[in-house]
């Protein structure tokens, strides 16, 4: 008789869990949203179509979808790195905001330097500023035991107060009402995908998708390698999973916590690359617009895995963009309803993710005629 654990003939294949289940969950979210839309007196099928078209229908819509996804990828990755190290970083909003300061300053003061150089400096600037905003809570957690949930929330508030001050009293373009900085020199703006395509004679409507999307993808790859393929990632995960074992293995949880929170903050800090350097071309008030919080849900839905985060970011990018198109085309389905739909999607795909699992397993076994007996408990 074979050892029971080593060969598992009746095991449910991975794609059932990784493909079918999420799709079912998404459908459930859409069904509930559809019911809401019906209650409001609109045609849910039509609304769904508008939403999908709005997210993927045209080149510029795809551009917007990917643009939102870009920001979410940065924050999601940032959250994931800290999470693997066992720390809960809900400071993505503030780290992104302060990171934007670093990016903005790089762009403002590099004048007419070519963009690739500015971008490198900006990446450093964003990473350093965001990193510092993660390092301090990390340091306080490691050395003083201060819980990161509290400190990072506080740092979000501190960041917004600081940025309000800087934008209103220091960086503001003199003589204007809007609390925003000077516009970056054209050379220090990130090329948008549209401009790149124009060089190849392809003309798509304007949209903010820019080369930082590539940077975000590179970050996905880098974070994947960092977490799963390097000894530093190994140490990070060891600390996150079992601090005692890490100490036993000669790994210092203190150092790991500080480093991981710094990296986490740095990744969140790169969000400004997309929003400021790629789209707004100046530092504006509250440009993070809550994405730092949604990034947490993105990371958790993506199981803190870069590939999962990429998918979850795309889903959310699509919801943001499709949702805004929805409220544009069907004004009754206003932005509040779109927010409800986003919440429903998180609820069904993230929180209620297991609700169809038993049924799905049962169905699979039925379909493949597994001989494993069902729980026929004695009455």
């Amino acid at each position, binding site marked *: 008789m074979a050892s029971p654990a080593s060969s598992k003939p009746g095991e449910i294949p991975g794609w059932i869990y990784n493909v079918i289940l999420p799709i079912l969950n998404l459908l459930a979210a859409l069904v509930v949203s559809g019911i809401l839309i019906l209650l409001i007196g609109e045609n849910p099928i039509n609304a769904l179509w508008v939403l999908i078209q709005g997210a993927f229908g045209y080149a510029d819509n795809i551009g917007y979808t990917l643009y939102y996804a870009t920001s979410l990828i940065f924050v999601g990755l940032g959250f994931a790195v800290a999470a693997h190290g066992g720390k809960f970083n809900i400071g993505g909003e503030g780290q992104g905001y302060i990171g934007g300061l670093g990016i903005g300053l790089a762009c403002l003061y590099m004048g007419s330097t070519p963009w690739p150089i500015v971008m490198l400096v900006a990446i450093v600037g964003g990473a350093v500023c965001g990193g510092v905003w993660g390092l301090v809570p990390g340091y306080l957690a490691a050395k*003083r035991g*201060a*819980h990161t949930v509290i400190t990072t929330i506080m740092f979000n508030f501190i960041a917004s107060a600081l940025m309000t001050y800087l934008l209103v009293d220091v960086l503001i373009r003199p003589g204007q009402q809007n609390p925003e900085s000077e516009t970056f020199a054209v050379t220090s703006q990130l090329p948008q995908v549209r401009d790149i395509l124009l060089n190849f004679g392809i003309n798509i409507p304007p949209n903010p998708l820019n080369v930082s999307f590539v940077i975000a993808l590179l970050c996905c790859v880098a974070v994947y390698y960092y977490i799963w393929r390097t000894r530093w990632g190994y140490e990070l995960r060891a600390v996150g999973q079992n601090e005692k074992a890490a100490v036993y293995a000669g790994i210092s949880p203190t150092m790991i916590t500080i480093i991981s929170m710094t990296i986490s903050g740095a990744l969140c800090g790169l969000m400004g690359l997309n929003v400021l350097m790629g789209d707004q071309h100046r530092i504006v008030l509250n440009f993070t617009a809550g994405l730092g919080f949604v990034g947490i*849900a993105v990371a958790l839905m993506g199981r803190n895995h870069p590939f999962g985060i990429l998918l979850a970011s795309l889903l959310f990018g699509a919801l943001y963009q499709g949702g805004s198109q929805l409220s544009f085309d069907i004004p009754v389905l206003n932005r*509040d*309803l779109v927010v409800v739909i986003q*919440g429903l999607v*998180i609820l069904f795909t993230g*929180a209620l993710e*297991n609700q169809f699992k038993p049924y799905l397993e049962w169905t699979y076994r039925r379909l493949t005629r597994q001989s494993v007996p069902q729980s026929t408990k004695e009455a």
Partner: protein
Amino acid sequence: MDNLNDIVTILASTVRLGTPLILCAIAGLFSERSGVVDMGLEGKMLGGAFLAASVAYLTGSPWLGLLAAIGFSIAISMLHGYACVTLNGDQVVTGVAINIMIAGFGPTFAFSWFNLGGRTPNLSGGQRFKDITLPLADTLKDVPVIGTIYDGLISGHNILVYVAFAVVPLSWWVLYKTRFGLRLRAVGENPSAVDVAGISVRGMRYQALVINGVLCGIAGAYLSTAHGAGFIRDMSAGKGYLALAALIFGKWKPGPTLAACLLFAFADAVQVRIQGVPLPFIGMVPSSFVQMIPYVLTVLVLAGFVGKSVGPKAAGIPYVKER
């Protein structure tokens, strides 16, 4: 004398600002003590605020509004329970989902019920909880010190403020002096110990979530029918997150949690008071920096004096039977 007056008014402000934090933080205390992390305090409170205001407006009774708020918050808590306790879903994701959903839900229904945009109509007169003047407050008013404190700080709040302050000792009593409390503390610490003792882990967690819903509902009603006068989109303004921070700050214990809430509120009250006032030695400080004070103070206190806070061991982990 004048100084005392100043202090009393700042403290009274602390009490008013602290009330929703206290209610939410204690709500979080019950759910987290049972092992369910609650990031959804913000949403539950906001939902409660919406229902309280709507029902109070429609019926003219803040009490019915309060009931509706409690009912609605409990319903959301049950959804929370269904996702996290029954289906073992991720507790943090559920909380985030609740927050986002409710943020859109209130305005959507406000719009369809009142056609006023994401608001309810303003509540007036009997639609709100009135401030209560305690017996003798007026008589004692002019007694130095004691009278000032009694009249200015202790008397003159609405009923929900007193409820919030009563909830703290009550929950201490429940937590440490009753069977329910014993089981609650056990289930957040080691659910399998509770399981083998013949107590339903899920049952305990659902019960804790009901209490959680009740308290969040009261907090919501406070926002829209007692402290405020009507529901406005996003009116919880991050108080749920702050309450969560206070709960952690207070190490999941009622007394210290109360203290943490009051510290946050006090720092905020002081912040309000010193905005636009030249500070000694420093002079005029931009208001943004003054507004930072509560947050910086919190970080300093946390890092300097409080140290590590370790929560209930099983919080955040779905209960699966194991050997």
